[in-house]
């Protein structure tokens, strides 16, 4: 699948020569370059030089008979696109289009009865002509959304108004989905979803609202939209690892999930387990974790029986090296525990607390601290208390060890408090564990030695067999060569 992601490859091919020169400054060079210009839409311009726009009469000055005709003329006029990379060309026409778009926005939002059946086609055509475009290659192949400034859409002065118009159109009381669905169809939605990859956060914000409205009004498109989002996410997780609009799409999904009917369909559960949970593995998790965790918790509030698979899923993808992500995972676990049912808790307490016990002994103090904060949560505390017989033995070793040897005094102090709390919950068990701690460690060490011993023996066994095999190798060889001759 490697070849399916040329956006990255494309850029890296172009810079391979410079990379050997200076990998560090490249970014700054590119940054400087970017400050000079924003990005144009990658329109493969076949339009040629467009005719200059001529201002049409104002809609408000037209008689009601003419208005409809004029409205459509203006919509057609706004289908003409301009090159915003060239800031001096067509200034007059650009201004005319801007003013016209403004007028259109106002026209549909202040007048009733102007969105008539015959206008739908022109409206959707105008919107499509302006917003649907192939997004340009990213200016910065290693764009880090957390650090780098996004590249802004150059044609925003027009596009913004088009989005504005689109929203007013969708939100108008006159808007009729039954007519609009002829134009706003699967293909339209598909193109709309691709735009979520825009680097410009302003555009994504509009898209989010637009898609939300469409999802709300077009019942026939709902399943399709969900499926396409599903595909975008899978591509993001398993193929490109890059898509700018993940957070926005998740935000929409959050409210979609909220509205799912019970019992949940298998399709929705599959989405949770096969898309949302694996999404936690993404490199840029920080950019959309809040939205993702919200979606997950929404699911669990709908159907508590999903708790066990969800937590097991998170444990499977638990970050191994990235402490920042580990803190996020812990945050999400706490959110889940906040809504967990005690019966569900019992099902996952063992694997979960094994992980938490690893986290509290993390040498990264933020990870340890975040895990220890669980003990400040009243509800979690009550769950722990109910199951103290199970949890204390899991946690004890780590806590005991950290209280002796963690480098960070804050962590040590927190651990003492936690130990105290746990001791109060079951003093007898606590004492037993304290006294058996040393023996336990020794047993572990012994096990370790035994394991090594075992592998050594196995290796010997292998050698022995290999030797036997070698002895019969000559025979094997002749058999093999016979068969291959045939």
């Amino acid at each position, binding site marked *: 699948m490697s070849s399916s992601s040329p956006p990255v490859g*494309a850029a890296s*091919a172009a810079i391979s020569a410079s990379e*050997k020169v200076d990998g560090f400054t490249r970014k700054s060079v590119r940054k400087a370059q970017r400050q000079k210009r924003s990005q144009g839409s990658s329109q*493969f311009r076949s339009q040629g030089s467009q005719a200059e726009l001529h201002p049409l009469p104002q809609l408000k000055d037209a008689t009601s008979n003419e208005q409809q005709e004029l409205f459509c003329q203006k919509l057609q006029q706004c289908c003409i696109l301009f090159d915003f990379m060239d800031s001096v060309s067509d200034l007059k026409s650009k201004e005319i289009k801007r003013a016209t778009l403004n007028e259109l926005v106002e026209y549909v939002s202040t007048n009733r009865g102007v969105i008539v059946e015959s206008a739908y086609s022109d409206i959707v055509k105008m919107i499509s002509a302006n917003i649907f475009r192939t997004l340009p290659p990213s200016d910065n192949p290693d764009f880090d959304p957390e650090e780098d400034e996004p590249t802004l859409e150059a044609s925003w002065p027009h596009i913004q108004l088009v989005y504005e118009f689109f929203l007013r159109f969708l939100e108008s009381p006159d808007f009729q989905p039954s007519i609009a669905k002829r134009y706003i169809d699967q293909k339209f939605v598909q193109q709309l979803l691709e735009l979520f990859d825009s680097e410009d956060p302003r555009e994504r914000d509009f898209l989010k609202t637009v898609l939300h409205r469409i999802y709300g009004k077009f019942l026939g498109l709902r399943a399709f939209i969900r499926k396409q989002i599903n595909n975008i996410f899978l591509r993001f997780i398993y*193929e490109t690892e890059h898509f700018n609009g993940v957070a926005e799409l998740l935000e929409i999904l959050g409210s979609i999930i909220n509205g799912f009917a019970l019992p949940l369909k298998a399709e929705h559960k599959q989405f949770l387990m096969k898309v949302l949970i694996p999404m936690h593995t993404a490199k840029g998790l920080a950019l959309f974790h809040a939205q993702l965790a919200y979606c997950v918790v929404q699911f669990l509030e709908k159907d508590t029986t999903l708790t066990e698979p969800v937590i097991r899923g998170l444990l499977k993808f638990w970050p191994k090296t990235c402490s920042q992500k580990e803190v996020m995972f812990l945050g999400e676990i706490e959110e889940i525990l906040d809504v967990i049912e005690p019966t569900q808790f019992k099902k996952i307490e063992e694997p979960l607390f094994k992980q938490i016990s690893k986290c509290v002994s993390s040498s990264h103090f933020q990870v340890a601290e975040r895990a220890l904060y669980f003990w400040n949560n009243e509800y979690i505390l009550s769950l722990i208390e109910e199951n103290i017989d199970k949890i204390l033995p899991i946690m004890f070793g780590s806590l005991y060890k950290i209280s002796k040897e963690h480098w960070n005094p804050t962590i040590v102090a927190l651990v003492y408090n936690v130990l105290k709390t746990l001791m109060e919950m079951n003093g007898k068990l606590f004492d037993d564990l304290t006294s058996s701690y040393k023996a336990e460690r020794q047993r572990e060490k012994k096990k370790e030695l035994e394991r090594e011993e*075992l592998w050594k023996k*196995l290796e010997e066994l292998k050698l022995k067999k290999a030797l036997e095999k070698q002895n019969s190798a000559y025979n094997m060889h002749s058999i093999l060569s016979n068969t291959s001759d045939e």
Partner: protein
Amino acid sequence: MAGAAGPGTGPGAAGGDGDDSLYPIAVLIDELRNEDVQLRLNSIKKLSTIALALGVERTRTELLPFLTDTIYDEDEVLLALAEQLGNFTGLVGGPDFAHCLLPPLESLATVEETVVRDKAVESLRQISQEHTPVALEAHFVPLVKRLASGDWFTSRTSACGLFSVCYPRASNAVKAEIRQHFRSLCSDDTPMVRRAAASKLGEFAKVLELDSVKSEIVPLFTNLASDEQDSVRLLAVEACVSIAQLLSQEDLEALVMPTLRQAAEDKSWRVRYMVADKFSELQKAVGPKITLNDLIPAFQNLLKDCEAEVRAAAAHKVKELCENLPAEGRETIIMNQILPFIKELVSDTNQHVKSALASVIMGLSTILGKENTIEHLLPLFLAQLKDECPEVRLNIISNLDCVNEVIGIRQLSQSLLPAIVELAEDAKWRVRLAIIEYMPLLAGQLGMEFFDEKLNSLCMAWLVDHVYAIREAATNNLMKLVQKFGTEWAQNTIVPKVLVMANDPNYLHRMTTLFCINVLSEACGQEITTKQMLPIVLKMAGDQVANVRFNVAKSLQKIGPILDTDALQEEVKPVLQKLGQDEDMDVKYFAQEAISVLALA
């Protein structure tokens, strides 16, 4: 981890000297269930050990079923497993039993994680070759069919990679079925699957009968090339290369070219980029006639594409494109149809485009010959040598050898020199580093005289650069220069200047003298080393900076083998012994090391 006691036979219990053959599987089961991923990973990686110890029959009857049931683990473990199983045929009893490996690999080919799946497919492809034709139809093909009609997209994606390996050896009836399955995957609902199918289209076409290529593959290709998703369309471009190779010119023109023309003008830059990127392959695949009629105009468009990414990719291919044109008429085509566009690119607004061009443009001189190079290309080289972007200049300089063969470097030297000097003093040390690397090449081409006059001072200046990497590179550069110009030159030009630095007030520069001696001594030989270098090194043993002193010890160790026994015994040994008593720990250490290596103890 306190409660992590392994179920089944505990390792301790199995450690007895009972039945040894029972032992490995117990270990494996225990280890595979361990809490610690690392331990699970270790045991999977030693799977062949276990299998070998078990013997073929028990591997088949016990180990493989166990592994098939155990597939639930972390992706890393699964990856290791998928890889291991690809080489397992011998361990299950050879080709006759290769099909035993299919069940675990089938499950692995359906997991979500791409790397695991890809590895499983790779292993399956490997194993497929070891199947007998009968086993292939009895076991392998059914597996491919199952995967191809799986519910979740992962299994269908994996299936795409397996068609081409089983097709050639299948019977006609089965072949038809295989084609049918591939067809349906090409129009799968999920874009991931269509992408997988598109990426395997070319490979599959190659194993098909020509008739089927025309009647089945071409329509699939046309469909994929006009898919709604550009990520699918661009993969069709890759397939185009393989398909084009299979068809006659006539069929090519009728069946493939309309689609290819369309791809070169696709509305998505990614697709156009792909066309540019695969240009040489496409050119070879379609042959000279279509190249002239279709590809050259398309290439011109790509060179002036609105996206820099596409222009850069096309610029990279300029030389290959020209090289691969038929010799007859080549010059005219290049001069009339390519060069005008190249000229534009020299002043492109995007540095990556210019830099891509600069990395290949010099190669045109061999194709165009002396006169054209002087008249048409030289002005471009000179313009690029003055480009504001250092990468562009560097790329020109790094390819000087091509021009050298055609017109000699002298033509360029007037412009070359300012460019080199500027790069040599560039504020970015990586740029300086890059230019240093080309010095030996330049020296060889410009000749000793020119070098001494214009470049030698630069080389010496780098020795006192404030960045260590530059000083280090400068040191190695000297050695290469000596290899080029000979010891006499070294003795007259380099060595005196290097040795003067031994008295520099900056200890870093004094150390540079030592580093230079380390590399120069071998190139200069015994006489110069003993007479000129050794005294300086020995003198520096009294340096007040410990770093210098221990580097003296290291240098002595290095040049020791070049010296004769007298010098070693009478001059080196006493100094090293003294350093061996130094108050500084490191100096002592390195002195003692030198003594033992040189066997002076």
